[in-house]
């Protein structure tokens, strides 16, 4: 039973435009979420996080939004750059990280 879901396996965005990656979760007790980026042949690297006491967290070009009532979070990247092309995983932080299945983002020139 997938507790963290990323329903879009892939996303293609033009350079300079906004990328929006979505994530849904099922357990309303989850209260801390993270986004990781993964390049091929490398381990995932931490990108940005959000606590349930907030509904938005911003770090440069990256913003994460949390809608607790909908049990939904999203990662916005603006403007998107070709170097952002990677697989993005959202995760709920409980005693372990529960990951979604990932969304492959491709940013084209």
């Amino acid at each position, binding site marked *: 039973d997938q507790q963290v879901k990323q329903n879009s396996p892939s996303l293609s965005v033009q350079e300079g435009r906004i990328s929006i990656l979505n994530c849904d979760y099922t357990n309303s007790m989850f209260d801390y979420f993270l986004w990781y980026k993964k390049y091929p042949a*490398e*381990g*995932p690297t931490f990108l940005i996080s959000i606590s349930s006491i907030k509904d938005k967290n911003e770090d440069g070009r990256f913003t994460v939004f949390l809608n607790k009532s909908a049990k939904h979070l999203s990662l916005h990247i603006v403007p998107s750059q070709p170097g952002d092309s990677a697989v993005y995983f959202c995760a709920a*932080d409980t*005693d*372990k*990280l529960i990951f979604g*299945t*990932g969304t492959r983002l491709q940013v084209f020139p």
Partner: protein
Amino acid sequence: GAGVSQSPSNKVTEKGKDVELRCDPISGHTALYWYRQSLGQGLEFLIYFQGNSAPDKSGLPSDRFSAERTGGSVSTLTIQRTQQEDSAVYLCASSLGSGAFFGQGTRLTVV
């Protein structure tokens, strides 16, 4: 070192052989996790250590899989009698609180 280190980076083994994968976490990190990523799949949780104890082994796929952690530091993931479906990238992560830092992974290929 400054980050999580895993060895070997690549391992090719024959079906039926045993393999050991090693993880050196970030110094001082009390929590250690093993995940694996099969081709085209997401990150599958295997096991979690807090110190030397493993409060959550729920993700280990079968009794061929085991892991230990000694001295609250290095961890070894052992797969006995490997099968082709064990082929994956095995990722280790460590944490001191919220979030986790990952190693580069061990790519295991069972032929």
